């Protein structure tokens, strides 16, 4: 079974530039999550999708972050404009499927450095 795919793995940008991350969840997983993990901290939920609808985006800084999950499969997370404090690893995870146990399956993450 293929895992959660994310790209790019690494991205370096200057502040005020924009960046987009892409995630392809495990096939059949209805729930998709984006987390932000700052160095030395636990993952913080940014947004949770159930199919193509948003379940929770209460911690998403909506003035600069946006996310979409068209057709309920792939998802993109965009940051525009980026700030220095956005430097972090952006994790995508999915859950669901026929034997849904609530377990989250994570991708490798996209490491963002904002200069």
């Amino acid at each position, binding site marked *: 079974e293929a895992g959660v795919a994310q790209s790019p793995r690494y991205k370096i940008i200057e502040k005020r530039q924009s960046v987009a991350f892409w995630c392809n969840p495990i096939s059949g997983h209805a*729930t998709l*999550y984006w*987390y932000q993990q700052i160095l*030395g*901290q*636990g*993952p*913080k*939920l940014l947004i*949770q999708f159930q199919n193509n609808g948003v*379940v*929770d985006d209460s911690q998403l800084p909506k003035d600069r972050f946006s996310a979409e999950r068209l057709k309920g499969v792939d998802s993109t997370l965009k940051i525009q404009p980026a700030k220095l404090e956005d430097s972090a690893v952006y*994790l995508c*995870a999915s*859950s669901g499927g026929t034997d*849904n*146990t*609530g*377990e*989250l399956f*994570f*991708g*490798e*993450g996209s490491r963002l450095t904002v200069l």
Partner: protein
Amino acid sequence: AQSVSQHNHHVILSEAASLELGCNYSYGGTVNLFWYVQYPGQHLQLLLKYFSGDPLVKGIKGFEAEFIKSKFSFNLRKPSVQWSDTAEYFCAVIDNYGQNFVFGPGTRLSVLP
């Protein structure tokens, strides 16, 4: 909203020492509990999980955890650690509705050879 706390920020042990990492959560309803591990340079991986039944759950690589409902705790244990257990360990909780998957701040474990 639920929250998760982990007792130790950084734990340093020698090989063969016993390990216990504390985890407490705050949520009044039914929860599912997880421990995830993140080895250096790798993605988060599931160590073990608890949904119901026997409160003592066994995971991969000799880890186990005990759910104590009255204490809102889900501590991780391993009787004898190895150098390869050096990693970051995260406790996580999700409510029974499948929402609000929350991670603790993590505990960094360093095992000295």
